[in-house]
């Protein structure tokens, strides 16, 4: 009995791996939707970092501008490839009836979602690698071994939170045309007060406090903390990680609710 159970478990994990391959193939082939979510952050990185090349931020202890901006844009890149991409593509798959079709096959629903998450993780890894490679090679950013634990923890928690939120938010997106609007409305205003594009210098305290309630600021700040040359210790920012963990939990809760809702009952 347990042998049967474990064989089917192995088979299901094989199915997840199988599905990740096809999700990847579909993602990289779609220039309009897939690749642009990927290219956008990198484009911003090159533009902004080139504009302020060699500048320093005095209010942050005189650290190089790029040590602030590269991790900030990395946070934006993670959000674009997880939250934005996941929410929009899931809404489209739902509208087109792909989710319903998948539900009619023996592929367990959890395995399909797991594969979509797995595929997103592959994209996040590629995004992170390219951003950091550019940062190190072109903009003099250093990845320090001492803050690596904090960097990796922040990346993992941020990816988890925004991926789960991306799937979970689909419940609140009425149709695929509304998806970009809902997604941008929930993300874009916050990025301006969340240390993504510029340091929060001279910003009213109330805006900073608001930003700290949402997950974008903690992700950007956590990564910036790990890249800050003045940081001592392992690069963990307790408050950032706590907020991210709470949002990750909320995201997983929403995602599980989405998972339980059968596609057929909608119509």
């Amino acid at each position: 009995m347990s042998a049967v159970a474990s064989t089917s478990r192995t088979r299901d994990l094989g199915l997840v791996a199988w599905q990740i391959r096809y999700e990847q193939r579909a993602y990289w082939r779609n220039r309009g939707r897939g690749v642009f979510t990927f290219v956008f952050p990198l484009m911003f990185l090159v533009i902004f970092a080139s504009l302020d090349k060699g500048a320093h931020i005095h209010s942050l202890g005189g650290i190089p501008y790029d040590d602030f901006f590269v991790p900030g844009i990395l946070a934006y890149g993670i959000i674009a490839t997880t939250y934005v991409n996941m929410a929009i593509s899931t809404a489209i798959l739902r509208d087109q009836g792909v989710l319903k079709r998948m539900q009619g096959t023996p592929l367990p629903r959890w395995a399909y979602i797991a594969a979509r998450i797995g595929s997103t993780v592959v994209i996040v890894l590629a995004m992170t690698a390219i951003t950091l490679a550019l940062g190190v090679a072109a903009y003099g950013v250093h990845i320090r071994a001492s803050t690596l634990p904090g960097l990796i923890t922040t990346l993992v928690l941020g990816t988890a939170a925004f991926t789960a939120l991306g799937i979970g938010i689909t419940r609140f997106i009425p149709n695929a045309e509304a998806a970009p609007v809902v997604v941008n409305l929930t993300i874009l205003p916050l990025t301006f007060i969340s240390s993504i594009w510029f340091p929060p210098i001279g910003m009213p305290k109330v805006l900073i406090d608001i930003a700290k309630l949402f997950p974008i600021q903690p992700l950007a700040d956590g990564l910036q903390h790990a890249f800050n040359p003045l940081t001592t210790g392992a690069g963990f920012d307790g408050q950032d990680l706590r907020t991210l963990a709470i949002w990750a939990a909320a995201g997983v809760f929403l995602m599980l609710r989405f998972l339980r809702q059968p596609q057929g009952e909608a119509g």
Partner: protein
Amino acid sequence: MAMNDTQTNEPVIEVRDLRKSYGEVDAVRGVSFEVSRGEVFCLLGPNGAGKTTTVEILEGYRTRTGGEARVLGIDPAPGQRELRERVGIVLQQSGVQNDLTVAELIEMYGRYYSRRRPVNEVIELVELSEKRNTRARDLSGGQRRRLDLALGLVGDPDLLFLDEPTTGFDPGARRQAWSTIRSLCDLGKTVFLTTHYMDEAQHLANRVAVMNAGQIIAIGRPEELGGRDLRPAEVRFTLPAAWSLGDIPDVPCERRTLEGDRVLVVTREPVPAAQRITTWALEHDIDLGHFSVSQPTLEDIYLELTSSVRENDHTTAREAVR
């Protein structure tokens, strides 16, 4: 194999007093029928009759609110993997991952099933060989529909649900799809078909059920549905202007009419009637144009069945208002 043998005599689908309500609205109001192995069973009915709800309960997309249902001996509750392994579903409107090619999609979906047909075999079956490396996005409507059929067949299902399978097909492609579906039944597969095309039901179905207002109002072989085989036949032809209705010999008939130059003879004895009329025409050297003898079509019967119920509904509604 032994398992299949014991199941041969069991109905593939068994529905008893099936009900589904959405709040106050009763979409399905006590439906019962059985479908046997190797049969093409067709569910007809106007939009809103409860067809889709019934089918989606059997497909495991919706839960029923009452009655019994068994599909391949299994309760079709949502998420029944054992059932999904043996059932193919071709939905009316459901997309695919548009950036993948025909061959990739068939390969990808095939892997979900523990028993599956080879990719090339499926591609050839639905005649998409030339499009095997085309992305789904770039297929025409008819080609997409054939891809849908391919994805329904790739798991080598015992039972195939087909919802409007040939919408958007040209006549040749439709004939081809019909022969594909027929060939499945020869292999012992069962097909549950919903369609709006009466010729499709006529051509494919062993049995037809007509649904209206959440209930089955007629069920039977397409030739016999609604007493179709017992209806009088219609003999039609055109009469040259020199002749009138009174010149035609008496034949046993229920009525005969002349509209313009077109004659209609409604008769329960079409063979002697046709014989007498044609003999008369030959004797007098009259050219009867467009001569035909026909039974009412499935469409005639269907429209009659669904319209009478519709009128009854209006009557009850009016009575309720009073």
